């Protein structure tokens, strides 16, 4: 069995285990897991940019925010999306995220490296500024309450049912994004990440590739936003603030960029520390900050890189033990 297949099986096993364990936990844990899963979708959208295209975005909260505000405004003002039309709302949320990214991408994709980071930061701040100040539309600082969840045969006020809905969206997103990164298009993206100039010489339109990746990431950001509006029950400028973008980026780096599931691990750790550990100890933020700093210093490939590190260490160790045997194998 190839290592790729083993990885997939491990991921499936862990996901199945989660689907079994979480609903049997306390409602606090269920809600926590739901929130973490929504952010996991956002983190995966960041990973498409960071891990597979090599673009570090500090403005992913913009697409998250437009999805969340769209859901909040549609449900509270027009009572749209509370029935079967919830699915239409999901579609509109993804469309809004994609459309915003398509517009922002025209500016952002021109820049590279640190400049991309800063231009996405500025774009994110534009959206935050509108959310914060355009009170007649967004409710300003207070935000918009989303008191009801959609109902279509399923009772989504039940946290466990709602968890399964979000879980379903998460699985579908993971699957779609996995297919994307394994596709020829995904491989071209990886090529751009490794060496853009060479890809351009080979005749690839690298701008268009990056642009499409940016738009896809925006669409999944919008999806996460719609789900967040119903998970959180309130949408406010807090949702689109710079720290949300920073969080999403750090989740990816923490788990391991370029792995998709790394962002999920990162989201689980961040929410676990921030919302679970914080109920136990007051110094939880030191733990989170410490984990960030240590990961960045000592684990550039994130937590998902640990097995590879161990394997490396193991090979090194056995090589030291019987150098002759290995030498003959390699020669």
């Amino acid at each position: 069995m190839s290592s790729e297949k083993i990885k997939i099986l491990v991921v499936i096993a862990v996901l199945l285990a989660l689907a079994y364990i979480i609903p049997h936990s306390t409602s606090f844990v269920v809600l926590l897991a739901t929130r973490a899963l929504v952010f996991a979708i956002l983190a995966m959208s960041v990973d498409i940019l960071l891990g597979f295209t090599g673009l570090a975005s500090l403005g992913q909260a913009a697409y998250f925010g437009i999805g969340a505000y769209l859901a909040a405004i549609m449900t509270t003002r027009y009572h749209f999306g509370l029935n079967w039309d919830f699915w239409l709302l999901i579609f509109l949320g993804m469309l809004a995220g994609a459309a915003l990214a398509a517009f922002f991408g025209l500016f952002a994709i021109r820049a590279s490296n640190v400049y991309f980071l800063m231009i996405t930061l500025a774009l994110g701040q534009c959206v935050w500024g509108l959310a914060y100040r355009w009170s007649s539309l967004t409710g300003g600082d207070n935000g918009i309450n989303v008191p009801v969840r959609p109902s279509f045969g399923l009772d989504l006020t039940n946290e466990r049912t709602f968890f399964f809905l979000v879980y379903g969206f998460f699985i579908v997103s993971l699957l779609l994004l996995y297919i994307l990164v394994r596709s020829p298009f995904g491989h071209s993206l990886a090529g751009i990440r490794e060496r853009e100039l060479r890809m351009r010489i080979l005749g690839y339109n690298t701008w268009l590739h990056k642009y499409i990746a940016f738009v896809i990431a925006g669409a999944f950001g919008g999806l996460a936003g719609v789900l967040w509006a119903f998970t959180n029950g309130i949408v406010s400028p807090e949702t689109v603030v710079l720290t949300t973008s920073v969080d999403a980026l750090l989740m990816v780096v923490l788990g391991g960029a370029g792995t998709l599931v790394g962002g999920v691990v990162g989201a689980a750790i961040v929410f676990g520390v921030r919302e679970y550990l914080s109920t136990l100890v007051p110094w939880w933020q030191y733990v989170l900050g410490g984990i960030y700093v240590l990961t960045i210093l000592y684990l550039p490939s994130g937590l998902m890189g640990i097995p590879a590190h161990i394997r490396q260490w193991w090979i090194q160790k056995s090589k030291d033990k019987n150098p002759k045997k290995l030498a003959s194998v390699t020669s």
Partner: protein
Amino acid sequence: MDTKFWIIQAFNGISYGALLFLVGSGLSLIFGVMRIVNLAHGSYFLLGGYVALSVIAATGSWALSIPTAALAVAIIGLLMERIFLRPLGFDPLRQVLLTVGFAFLFQQAALDIWGGNNMDINPPAVFNNSIVIDSVYFPLYRVFMIVMALAIGIALWLAMEKTRVGAAVRATVDDAQMARGVGIDTNRISMIIFALGAFLAALGGVIGGAFLGIYPGLDFEMLPLAFAVVIIGGMGSLGGAAIGALAVGLADNFGKALFPEVSYFTLYAPMVLILAIKPTGLFGRE
């Protein structure tokens, strides 16, 4: 909306710009010299304000709190650069993320030490007066801010243009590799600039704390503004930072007064345009 309105708004904008210059110039120099996007810069601002509060509580002297807080935070910046950023080597993304990690650690430390309440730095009562010219009131404290920023700006400019170290800094901004080649110790320059940047941000925190207040979350509120200054002005350019600060200060004030609903948008949208068209900023060196 008469002339009085315009004069007052322009004055407020300029004095706010003076504060932004202190925060932005340090960030600009750090980026120019080290190519580090320092997301902990807002934290230096916040820590400066908090340390000043402690100094005032202990000694009762506002004047003493300004240099003490700025120096204390400069030392924090220096240690952060020496112990963590320097060994990391050159990888922009990891550097950025490391500074974010520190921003979170500082946030928690500030919360533990100073609590979560909104606190005010109270300058001596003299500053509560205003200069009255033709029935327009100019608060003395805001005048002080402008004078302070001007003094710092001129001192920095002289240091950059007239001293040997300043010339070395400029050389490093232009081409770090070449600067190393001709024997400039860019390692030491980085250390000095990082400490100086932290010093300036903390100074801004002490001075700005008197009218913004000092509260948790202020760090990530100041950070994007500082970036706007740096990007509009151009990275690594002192004059650019001054013009950027003035532009952001005025845009912020007039935006809030004239079209409140889109005020932040009018601030950040130009930043996007400048980045898209000329990433090095209006006055940045190529």
